[in-house]
């Protein structure tokens, strides 16, 4: 386990694979944030008055807030006036108004190439992958595939701007109902300037026949991405949703402040999986995406289920807590997470499980892996309200340290206000044990491979929860982000 081995250097110098930029003409609005900008975004998207009102309320509320500092993070100062809040690569600088969404054939070939390069099957010919995709570049949803097939089942899967136009009642009913704009600083910011994202509605009793997937990419320089995802799963319905993200390599920090809202009704089930691979900055800790996201699911119905699975390997700073509000009796929530940090990356991530309904259950499995000079923190809250009789929580968070300059931290909060609740938490922090390495070495497996084997085995519990295609990608990512740093 000496730092000398060549493998270390080789992988440490391995480039971020998705760090290219695409040369498409992009309509970017002036940098800066003001009420006019909020109005402009709204006008560009041709939004109804109620939505503009929502944005303006959010913006005015945001002005009264200060950026929180409680995270175990060293945040660079964010100049909110130096960011452009809207960048549209499909518009080719034709200005506001316009029809926008209709043109599947009009997509810039460069854009198609980008998504091809990323391995995102936008073309029907890649239908073998069997996943419906909504691709979002910068601020605009580029294309959504498999729409017709989903429509037959009554499933709505489209960009949120389109949903605002075509299903205004649905959007109006649910937007902000899980994450209100007053929730936190970044949620208020997002509510004011959110540009695009996905909208999913699964009607009663429908089992979505394929995985739905969104692919986010930040492309343009000096922009932030503020997407908003809203998933509504009606009674007895089921959907599995995947989210992936990449960004080009840039010296400056790029801001990503998204909101994901999920509504789960009676006996419905939602699986939400994320493979987050935003650009993590270079080995000196320069640049990288600031991933400040609010994700929350509301389990409204009796016996509803929601599971979050996340593999976090990218971003200079990850600060997010995909959470569940378990208000339906007998609802169940799960959180599976692998967070990998290397070089100068920082992560403060975890979950909140808020038990309100009777006999609600939640499980938290979190695996942190830190290497290089990174800091990796798990922070989680398990709250059992006086109404949550028979609530049950099991949390387990393990940290693995690779290298003597990194940090692994655990901050679990448990607030229990009900005597019938059973809440358990356990955590361990350790390095890869010499015994395990020795055992593998003995059997002719060299140290590098042995480490990779052990790390993969360690993360397996979470990766197994991912849908197949994603699991393969996640495993590869783990390899790239991690093995190099084994000292």
């Amino acid at each position: 386990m000496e730092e000398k081995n060549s493998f270390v250097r080789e992988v440490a110098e391995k480039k971020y694979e998705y760090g290219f930029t695409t040369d498409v003409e992009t309509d970017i609005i002036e940098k800066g944030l003001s009420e006019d900008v909020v109005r402009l975004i709204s006008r560009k998207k041709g939004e109804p008055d109620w939505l503009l009102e929502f944005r303006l309320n959010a913006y005015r509320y945001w002005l009264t807030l200060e950026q929180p500092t409680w995270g175990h993070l060293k945040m660079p100062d964010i100049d909110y006036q130096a960011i452009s809040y809207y960048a549209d690569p499909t518009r080719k600088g034709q200005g506001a108004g316009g029809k926008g969404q209709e043109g599947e054939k009009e997509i810039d070939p460069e854009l198609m190439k980008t998504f091809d390069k990323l391995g995102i099957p936008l073309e029907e010919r890649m239908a073998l992958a069997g996943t419906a995709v909504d691709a979002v570049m910068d601020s605009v949803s580029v294309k959504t595939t498999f729409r017709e097939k989903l429509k037959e089942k009554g499933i709505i899967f489209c960009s949120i701007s389109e949903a605002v136009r075509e299903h205004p009642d649905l959007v109006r009913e649910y937007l902000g109902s899980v994450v209100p704009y007053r929730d936190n600083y970044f949620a208020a910011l997002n509510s004011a300037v959110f540009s695009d994202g996905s909208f999913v509605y699964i009607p009663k009793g429908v089992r979505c026949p394929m995985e739905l997937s969104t692919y986010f990419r930040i492309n343009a320089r000096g922009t932030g991405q503020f997407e908003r995802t809203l998933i509504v799963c009606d009674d007895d319905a089921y959907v599995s949703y995947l989210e992936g993200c990449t960004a080009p390599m840039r010296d400056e920090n790029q801001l990503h402040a998204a909101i994901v809202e999920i509504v789960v009704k009676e006996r419905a089930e939602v699986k939400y999986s994320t493979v987050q691979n935003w650009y993590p900055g270079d080995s000196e800790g320069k640049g990288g995406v600031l991933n400040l996201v609010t994700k929350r699911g509301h389990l409204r119905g009796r016996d509803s289920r929601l599971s979050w699975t996340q593999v976090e390997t990218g971003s200079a700073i990850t600060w997010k807590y995909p959470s569940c509000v378990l208000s339906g009796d007998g609802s169940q929530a799960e959180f599976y997470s692998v967070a990998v940090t290397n070089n100068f990356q920082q992560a403060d991530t975890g979950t909140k499980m808020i038990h309100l309904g009777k006999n609600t259950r939640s499980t938290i499995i979190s695996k942190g892996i830190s290497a290089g000079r990174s800091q990796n923190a798990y922070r989680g809250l398990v709250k059992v309200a006086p109404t949550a009789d028979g609530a049950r929580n099991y949390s387990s968070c393990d940290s693995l340290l690779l290298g003597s300059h990194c940090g692994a931290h655990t901050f679990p909060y448990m607030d229990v206000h009900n005597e019938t609740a059973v809440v358990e938490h356990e955590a361990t922090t350790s390095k890869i044990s010499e015994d395990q390495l020795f055992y593998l070495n003995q059997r002719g497996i060299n140290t590098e491979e042995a480490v990779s084997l052990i790390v993969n085995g360690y993360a397996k519990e979470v990766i197994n929860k991912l849908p197949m295609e994603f699991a393969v990608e996640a495993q590869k990512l783990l390899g790239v982000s991690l093995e190099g740093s084994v000292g």
Partner: protein
Amino acid sequence: MKQYLDFYDEVRDVIAARSCREMNDEREKALQTFASQGFPSKKTERYRYADVEADFAPNYGIQLAQLGGTLPPHCFRIAEAEPRVRALYNKVADTADSIVALNTMLSVDTLVVHVPGTRVEHPIQISNILKGEQDTMVCRRILIVMDKLAEADIIITDRAASQSRFLTNQVIEVVMDEGSHLSLYEVEETHLLCTRYSSVFVRQGANCSLHHSSLTLFNGHTRNRIDVQLQGQGSEVTLGGCIIADKMQHVDNNTLIEHLVPNCLSRELYKYVLDDSAVGAFAGKVLVHEGAQKTSSQETNANLLATRTARMYTQPMLEIYADDVKCSHGSTVGQMDEAALFYMRQRGIDEREARLLLKAAFITEVIENIPLESLRDRLHVLVDKRLRGELSKCEGCKLCK
């Protein structure tokens, strides 16, 4: 807050005259800290679960007496202690903390326990008896200095002998030199109108061992803080806590163990039994600094909630900057095992007794960890009495009924 500043202004000369140079030298800085920070709010992470402002709001008379009477062996008034020992005053405490600053500002005398390099056969017991017709605030200051290879058991008890309101603000500083062993026990048996703020700061040298138990059997509002710094290799620390609370009691334990050097061991076990509308809080942090390799640390907090209205907040934290370590923490909140209750009922044990047995069994683990046998035996009796509601403090008092 203003009342304390005004009060200090009034009595500053009286305090200075009754006190000694080492203590007086620290007062101005403490005043500045306290005046600029005020009482910590709930936004201060380490005071998240305490309502400091409210606890200090009542109009207390403040006791400004020197230590009197004959002191037991190895115990001194600060003015009579060796100069090198006196010089350690306020050197270990967290001077940036405003509760500590308030204590430094108002303390008149310090009890010094100085153990030379020998083993002290009999435990040293320090009894604090709160007595008086008026509501009183007590600023208590203790400095424990363990010389090389010293060994001692120290028991500090808090009792209240009258039904007035009492507020205790206690600061204990402990300096342990190489190879010393200290067992420090704090037993609190007061009443519902008592508020206790205790801050214990320990600095451990090489090959030292410290056992600290905090036993809250009866109280009103209690906040105990203990910070341990492991500064020498080969040291170990064991923190234990046994908390039994009911009615409107509030118990908050806040611990920090800092591993600054390699090869140290820390263990922590806190158990709470909460009944009625009691509120319990536990926040424990183990901080392993960069380079503190081969650290082994284990932190456990287990809690039993007996009623719907009892509340527990728990927060076992790890902050680790070294890779060759073995750290774990566990925390549970649960209720009594129905199967065990059923088993006992089946055998003719009535429900009340069965529940009591379960609670006692739950808490026993902490008491069994106590190395001092006589105290262990005494505590078993006290806990049993406490769980039956027979603890002497409760008998004659009209408050709890």
